[in-house]
């Protein structure tokens, strides 16, 4: 399964971290859209589990936005 903006948003909903995910912008950092430091860790874990990829601590700067995450995950899945 490839990552898309939609399924990353579904994961954010599953993480139970934000009221209206539909309003989220895919090119703005999660941290600037109401997802705090604990919530974002939960989102990353769910992404790791859903796509069976690892996001090491040193790569965190590469997954700040939903667009970043989609690109990062799909590169890992290649």
């Amino acid at each position, binding site marked *: 399964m490839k990552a898309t903006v939609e399924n990353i948003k579904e994961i954010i909903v599953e993480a139970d971290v934000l009221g209206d995910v539909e309003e989220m912008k895919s090119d703005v950092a999660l941290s600037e859209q109401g997802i705090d430091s*604990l919530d974002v860790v*939960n989102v990353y874990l769910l992404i790791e589990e859903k796509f069976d990829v690892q996001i090491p601590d040193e790569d965190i700067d590469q997954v700040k936005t939903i667009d970043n995450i989609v690109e990062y995950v799909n590169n890992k899945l290649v």
Partner: protein
Amino acid sequence: MLGIKEIASYLPENKISNYDKKEKFDLDDDFIENKIGVKFHCRKNDDEKSSDLCVKAFQNLLKKMTIDISTIDCCIVVTQNPDYNIPHTSAIVHGKLELENECACFDISLGCSGYVYGLSNILAFMQSNNLKNGLLFTSDPYSEIIDDEDKNTNLIFGDGSTVTYIGEDPLYVAKDFSFGTNGKSYKEILCDEKLYMNGRAVFNFTATTIPKYIQKLLKKNDLQDEDIDKYILHQGSKYIVDTIRKRLKVDVSKVPFDMYDYGNTISSAVPMILEKELYNDSSRLLLSAYGIGLSWGSVILEKINLNKEDK
């Protein structure tokens, strides 16, 4: 049969407010109350040591029950902040409580998982050596190792201690234990001079490992969620407790959370909750404690009347 007869705890009166750190660590009330779940954390006096906290827990135990000191034949302290490197803190506690010479004393070096390991150890040790009255202490004053500038640890941990009285005719007995370790991740919570914690790694560990092993323990004992009245989880943070509960798909009413006013007291966290549950109506409890090591331990406790009926 040996089991838990009573529990008492001690929390220092001195409390540090996390609301006073909002500016320093860029916090809001929601984060303090609903994510960390610690409004205040207890801080012992600088001249108090781990053994002093044990003694104060024991003094609180004496307010609950009469104990003939001369009958205590086992004394264990769970701590990773002992009074000294040498000797073991349990020997110091033994001296301060003026226990009899014919009393076995040893420490257990474990962090957050320590109470479950300690419970298994004291029950097995007492049973195999025909001992009758034991004291299991937890006392790990993290104020001695916390970095005041570290947001990851400064907001969470509090000082405190507990003592569990183990003897015949108990309130609860242990039905089954489960233990585990992921030693390759030992660096994720480490203290060289000051405490370091990789919050993300610890969260991932607890969210993925703990629900799996709790479910495995239930399955091994042919129990379902409805057979467990309360899940007493290590109070790492509210976020961690909530995450494990959601992953277990357990109702919020079955998972007590109670660290708002004193913080994460490491190995004392689980017995502090258990103390409040001892005289409730619960027939069967599941305790799970996890953290440093990375280490975990779970136990199913059954009220002794239930146990008799089963037989």
